[in-house]
């Protein structure tokens, strides 16, 4: 299991989530599931408040595939904000992203709800689709389940999704706290190695040197570092150097090459390549964008006539 999936599993077991899930299900009559990014089964299968109509459809192979495809569409569309999609039966399915920094680590999923009252025409369209797929299902049971589907008004449903979005932010904070706790709980050797890197990133740091300083073999150090941080030693060092470089790039008096060597890169080409790889833009583009933003902030602040003390002062000086 990868780290994100493990984090979602821990959130799923947390009291915060359990209490919310219980209250949400009881209050709305809708299912709620918290899942990692990759999934291989239906979100609400066998869960409390699963729509009986959906449960019947999911018993068939073709129906199950259609439901999975709908859930996948919702998840694909929910990159930064909640997304709602509709299945072949007209029921809504929503995914709300859980983010750790700028990375999506999982989704809150709810739905199996109609925004229209069930109608004979609606059921006819469903049976037509099932016939096209060659799906054999007990139609009288399906019809009874269809007419008992939960129906919400557009405002009720969008209100629920808003509540989920707010709760998702709570989960994001909880996930962040877990990550921080984990970082603090990492093996002393790794903590010392990270502290060493933070203090010496500008010098050439060899893997053998740092392993030797930690009194372990290079192989063991690499293995432990990777296992604990999820990154190789070289990747971690590269990231630290790029982060330091980003700070220095805000100073317009420093040349890019000067910054590259200051933060420990031995070659400008390597610096440019890694910077682009990690930030999606070149150092120069980053500097231009940051400078424009700083100038904009400075302009706004001067319009509002803020005193030149506090955090704004630096921005104003930079823009000058």
């Amino acid at each position, binding site marked *: 299991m990868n780290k994100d999936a493990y984090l979602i599993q821990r959130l799923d077991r947390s009291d915060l989530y359990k209490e919310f899930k219980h209250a949400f299900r009881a209050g709305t009559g809708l299912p709620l599931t918290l899942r990692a990014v990759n999934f291989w089964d239906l979100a609400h299968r066998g869960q409390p408040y699963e729509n009986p109509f959906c449960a019947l459809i999911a018993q068939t192979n073709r129906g199950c595939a259609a439901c999975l495809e709908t859930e996948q569409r919702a998840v694909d569309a929910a990159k930064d904000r909640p997304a709602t999609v*509709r299945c072949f039966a007209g029921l809504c399915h929503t995914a709300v992203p859980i983010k750790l920094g700028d990375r999506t680590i999982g989704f809150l999923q709810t739905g199996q709800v109609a925004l*229209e009252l069930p*109608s004979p*025409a609606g059921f006819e369209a469903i049976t037509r689709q099932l016939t096209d797929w060659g799906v054999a299902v007990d139609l009288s049971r399906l019809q009874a389940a269809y007419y008992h589907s939960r*129906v919400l008004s557009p*405002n009720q449903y*969008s209100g629920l999704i808003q509540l989920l979005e707010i709760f998702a932010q709570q989960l994001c904070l909880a996930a962040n706290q877990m990550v921080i706790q984990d970082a603090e709980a990492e093996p002393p050797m790794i903590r010392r190695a990270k502290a060493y890197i933070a203090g010496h990133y500008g010098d050439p740091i060899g893997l053998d040197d740092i392993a030797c300083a930690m009194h372990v073999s290079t192989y063991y150090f690499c293995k432990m570092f990777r296992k604990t941080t999820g990154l190789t030693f070289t990747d971690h060092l590269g990231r630290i150097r790029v982060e330091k470089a980003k700070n220095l790039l805000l100073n317009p008096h420093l040349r890019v090459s000067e910054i590259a060597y200051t933060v420990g890169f031995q070659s400008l080409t390597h610096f440019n390549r890694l910077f682009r790889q990690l930030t999606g833009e070149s150092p120069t583009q980053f500097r231009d964008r940051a400078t424009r933003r700083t100038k904009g902030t400075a302009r706004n602040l001067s319009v509002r006539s803020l005193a030149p003390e506090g955090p704004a002062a630096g921005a104003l000086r930079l823009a000058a």
Partner: protein
Amino acid sequence: MKVFIIEDAPQTRQELVELLATLERFEVVGQASSVREALTGIEAAAPEALTLDISLPDGSGVEVLKHIRRRGWKLSVVVLTGNLYEALQVKCQQLGAVAVLDKINGLGPVREALLAINPASETC
């Protein structure tokens, strides 16, 4: 502007009434929850705009649109459906609907569509 609401779900109908009550130049002059009620209600109330649900217990809102067109009534129609697909959108637009909206997005877009209606330019 006089508005007639056609929607079979009572909760959604109530939300539309509340929405229109917040808009200054709009007044709800009637409500219907089926195609039959809609056709008689529109004739009696003579509205200038409609919010029209598609899935109704005795037929489709598209039938209402067709009827309006046949009778030559000058109305701005905002379609609001809980099951929007492309062919339906095209059909409603061909029949003169000023907006075809999905209930998935809540009632915010309905408000915007109603406010965008120019009283002098009914389309149906």
